[in-house]
């Protein structure tokens, strides 16, 4: 628990959160290891966690029918994985795989949602941080859509 708190304190995502809030968050945290090739979560399933990737690479995938699964984004060391826990209906939008052995700190979304409802200031701080992650992802997705290196680009 202390270790998780230290980790959160050092992570830029949580920068500026007061100590007692970090205590709250750390209370919902646990360290998990995923083996290479292991599924971390599946599209459509209930989303009750988010992860801070501490080591390794995670891929977000969509099933491209005749193309098979398509990797649309990788989440790597230091990145935040998963926002579906925060936004109803709390279902994963993508499937996540461990491309290599992955260590994450998982934060319990159910527990966090409850704490956020009780403490709107905490909720606001978290939403602010996750909307930055989402905005970034949206920007990247738009760039991918432009297909700037494509045959007709």
């Amino acid at each position: 628990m202390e270790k998780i708190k230290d980790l959160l304190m050092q992570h830029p995502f949580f920068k500026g959160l007061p100590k007692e809030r970090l205590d709250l968050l750390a209370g919902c945290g646990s360290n998990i290891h995923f083996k290479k090739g292991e599924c971390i979560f599946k599209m459509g399933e209930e989303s009750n966690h988010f992860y801070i990737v501490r080591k390794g690479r995670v891929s977000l995938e969509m099933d491209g029918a005749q193309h098979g699964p398509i990797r649309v984004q990788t989440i790597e060391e230091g990145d935040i994985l998963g926002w579906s826990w925060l936004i109803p209906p709390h279902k994963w939008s993508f499937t996540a795989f461990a491309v290599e052995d992955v260590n994450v700190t998982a934060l319990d979304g159910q527990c966090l949602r409850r704490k956020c409802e009780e403490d709107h200031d905490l909720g606001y701080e978290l939403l602010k941080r996750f909307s930055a992650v989402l905005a970034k992802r949206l920007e990247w997705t738009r760039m991918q859509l432009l297909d700037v290196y494509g045959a007709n680009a």
Partner: protein
Amino acid sequence: MRKESHLVEETVDPMVPRPFVVRESREETRDAFTLTLEPQEANGAPAFEPGQFNMIYVFGVGEVPVSISGDPRQPEVLVHTVRAVGGVTRALQKLGPGDIVGVRGPFGSAWPVDKAKGKDVVIVTGGIGLAPLRPAVCQILGQREKIGKFALLYGARTPKDILYREQLGQWRSNLDLQVRVTVDNATRDWYGTVGVVTILIHKARFDPANTIAMVCGPEIMMRFVVQELIKERMREQDIYISMERNMKCAVGFCGHCQYGPNFICKDGPVFRFSDVRHLFGLREI
């Protein structure tokens, strides 16, 4: 304009190409290939600086500008990586050893490799944009001790579109060169990073206050990359970009490649971002 003053020497026509022999044509990706050319005449290939380009002529078909992508430390050959997208480039794709092409050049401005001495260097490229930066990478590696941290960040469309795979692997094995490659999307046989090239910038190690950035790729991609570099607190005058416009003559006569007051063929293609930032966001410029 009296003749007397010009009698000293006959003006060489910069529009006349010199013959070069194709020594090797090598497939890089499904639509890109690399030509190695040797001069047909005995007087050697012209020296070039990283970032410069040549005009390559296919007999009876036409001429295109192509950046030089070889190692400036091996000036005896000309190396060009070409993407087959039009009539002339497709004709170039069909050439093999022994075939002859015409070459004019080298033309244009160079990457500021000299300015990078004592500084960190971050190279951000996308797609075929790696080709004009390969000479700069080679030159920097040849004088590695003069440069601080060195990062090469490269984005491609899919894993199949990655240029110079073998060489990227060799470069990656250099402990003092951070090579990061990402693709816009991939299937499961790709274990590397997926995402646009800008995601690599934040993770590269360099000191924004003491870094030279060299950026080359499609204009939209460069726009995002420059934005990201500035967000990382790099200064506009330390960022260099390579621009593209239509080009017919490469010597400033045809007017096609104008970019504001600049002729891409002689004032570019490499520009200091702070010198062109007022043009960079303008539409139809």
